């Protein structure tokens, strides 16, 4: 059995830190793990996708359509784009933040309306206003850890393991902030 988690978002949102935290949790839990990341040009404000796969034995580091147990979406439009990854019976966690892509900014395209409803028609959806929650705990940049909290709750892996992983992956001076962000996300 292999569990598949797809993380989608916009370059610069901190999806890499999220995948590192998930990676440490599942390594610690004793699984074989593969994580596939995107670096370089597409990171510059473009759509980014990270795959995390864990189980007894993992071959391919990538996840293809209709195979994800969980899609963790850092942005609403990217959630819509990532919807195709969700497998039957899978779920999607959506940060309700909207970031306008350049074709929308220039007027060549429109930011779709009713994204949450469209997704809810297709699969189980959990929404979080992670940016707002992160601001409440002190820094908008902790939005990624809020989302990790939501994922942790839905992962079937003990909470303590997640907290340990947050501790080892964030800078010490931001630890309290990030632990508070995690807790808020976990309790959504």
């Amino acid at each position, binding site marked *: 059995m292999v569990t598949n988690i797809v993380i989608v978002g916009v370059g610069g949102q901190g999806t890499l830190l999220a995948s590192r935290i998930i990676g440490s949790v599942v390594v610690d839990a004793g699984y074989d793990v*593969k994580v*596939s990341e995107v670096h370089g040009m597409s*990171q510059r404000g*473009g759509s980014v996708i990270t795959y995390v796969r864990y189980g007894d034995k993992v071959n*391919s*580091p990538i996840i*293809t359509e209709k195979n994800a147990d969980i899609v963790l979406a850092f942005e609403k439009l990217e959630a819509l784009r990532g919807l195709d990854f969700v497998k039957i019976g899978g779920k999607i966690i959506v940060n309700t933040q909207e970031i306008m*892509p350049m074709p929308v*900014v220039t007027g060549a395209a429109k930011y779709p309306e009713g994204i949450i409803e469209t997704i809810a028609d297709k699969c189980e959806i959990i929404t979080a206003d992670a940016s707002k929650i992160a601001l409440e705990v002190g820094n908008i940049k902790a939005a990624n850890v809020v989302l990790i909290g939501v994922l942790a709750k839905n992962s079937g892996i003990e909470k303590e393991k997640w907290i340990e992983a947050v501790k080892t992956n964030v800078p010490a001076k931001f630890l309290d902030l990030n632990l508070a962000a995690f807790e808020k996300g976990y309790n959504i």
Partner: protein
Amino acid sequence: MKKLMLGNMAIARGAYEAGASVVSSYPGTPSTEITENIAKYDEIYSEWATNEKVATEVAVGASIVGARSMTCMKHVGLNVAADPLFTASYTGVGGGLVLVVADDPGMHSSQNEQDSRNYAKAAKLPMLEPADSGDCKEFVKLAYDISEKYDTPVIVRLTTRVAHSQSLVAEEERIEKPLGTYEKNIGKNVMMPAMARGRHVYVEKRMAELAEFADNSDINAIEYNDKKIGIIASGIAYQYAKEAMPEASFLKIGMVHPLPMGKIKEFAKNVDKLYVVEELDPFIEEACKVNGVDVIGKDVFTLLGEYTPELIKAGIMGEKYEEKQPSGIPVRPPVMCPGCPHRGVFHVLKKLGLTVSGDIGCYTLGAAAPLASIDVCVCMGASVSGLHGMTKARGEEFSKKSVAVIGDSTFMHSGITGLIDIVYNKGNATVIILDNAITGMTGHQQNPTTGYTIKGEETRRVDIEMLAKAIGVNRVTVADPFEVDEFEKVVKAELEAAEPSVIIARRPCALLKHVNYGAPCKVDADKCKGCKMCMKIGCPAITFKDGKAIIDPSQCNGCGLCTKICKFGAIGKQEA
């Protein structure tokens, strides 16, 4: 306990454990993190070289005098490094020499999709191809042993999905490799015709011996399962194929050149139907066919892009593979960051309607809408020399309406040679050097113009102004791309000049830690006329709603470029 590591990090760990002591590289996605991780080991001397040719020559030199050395680059970097590589194949090594090249099928961050395996064949060098991070570390260590035993540089080839995927790696101790005595050996190390003829004889003998090694090494391994279908694959394609066809028999190739032809023939005899699964070129397939082994390859698999397990399964089962169709969801292409200094430059170039000869870096995004300013982009350094060709072909009027744009690191890499060519050959071109104080696109590496080494130590800084003047450019101007009016005046004046000009557009990358523009900007809705002028600079923080521009404070870094673009004074800073 095993650690989760990027393929690139595992390559660095392999070099460390193998006792490597000199590493010289030029950054390039997806290879950059190898050398960044090597720089963390104090036992290894590491550096960012000016380009891949220099880096390879540094590694060759270190090897000849006895050090285990390494150079790392992306696939197109290997084109630059090809000159020393082809002849280092003849000299062979002193200490082991490993060249790591990272190909980019699917072009996540590249300008072409070339398959570096062809270089191994052309340069007559052994090439290993790992399939995950564990392989990465082990193959590098094996590469050093092969290099010294067979007196040859060894290429380790990665693709993006191996370089940028994390998997588990067991760390081991470093084995120190003290330098032996260096002895002068003209016959081996001075490649003049008489000596090179002798060395070519050795190279052919070596490759024959390596072909034998390939057949005997565990790095090429047969895994028999159901024998109706046999699959030959290496690297990431092996992982995808294993995922797609778990019941099939496999020959996992770890050494892609020379190929284990004995093992391939044995495997072919024992399976009913034999497939070669490889991204990009039919490299293994053609070798099989030349050797009379009947395989199915590119008849059912594409030459283009990355593979997936589904694509492979469809090819083998004879099913139709449906490429994903555009969904109608707005695409999100990469953009210049909020506060990017390049935005000011392209705003002016677009306004003046110039032909822009572009180059490789973040600023290549100047070709994207709405700025859409760049006309041409080919390879590192080509903006400068390409512009020279354009102006020689089309004459003086054209040179008054055209510029080259090139970043600081790219200028050091190979822009300077083009500029010398312009000066020497009586050219008249305007070259804009975008000096943002860092190598940006690959994720902030130091370069000769920044004044810091790979380890962050202070060093002598190459002064771009003095360099341009020293090679004979009389007109060198430094201008701030955020002072758009002044910048426009400078560009116009230099276009009119009847001699080569260099404009240094100087402002640091917005992502550098010391850059702090303070509070974000905001639009005064009463003053905003809805003219959309501010939208033309393509800042991701500015959007338009209900006839007015609005600025997203979570995206805006307060750079203030838009405040200078707005003709109605409607944009200002938020109160801090």
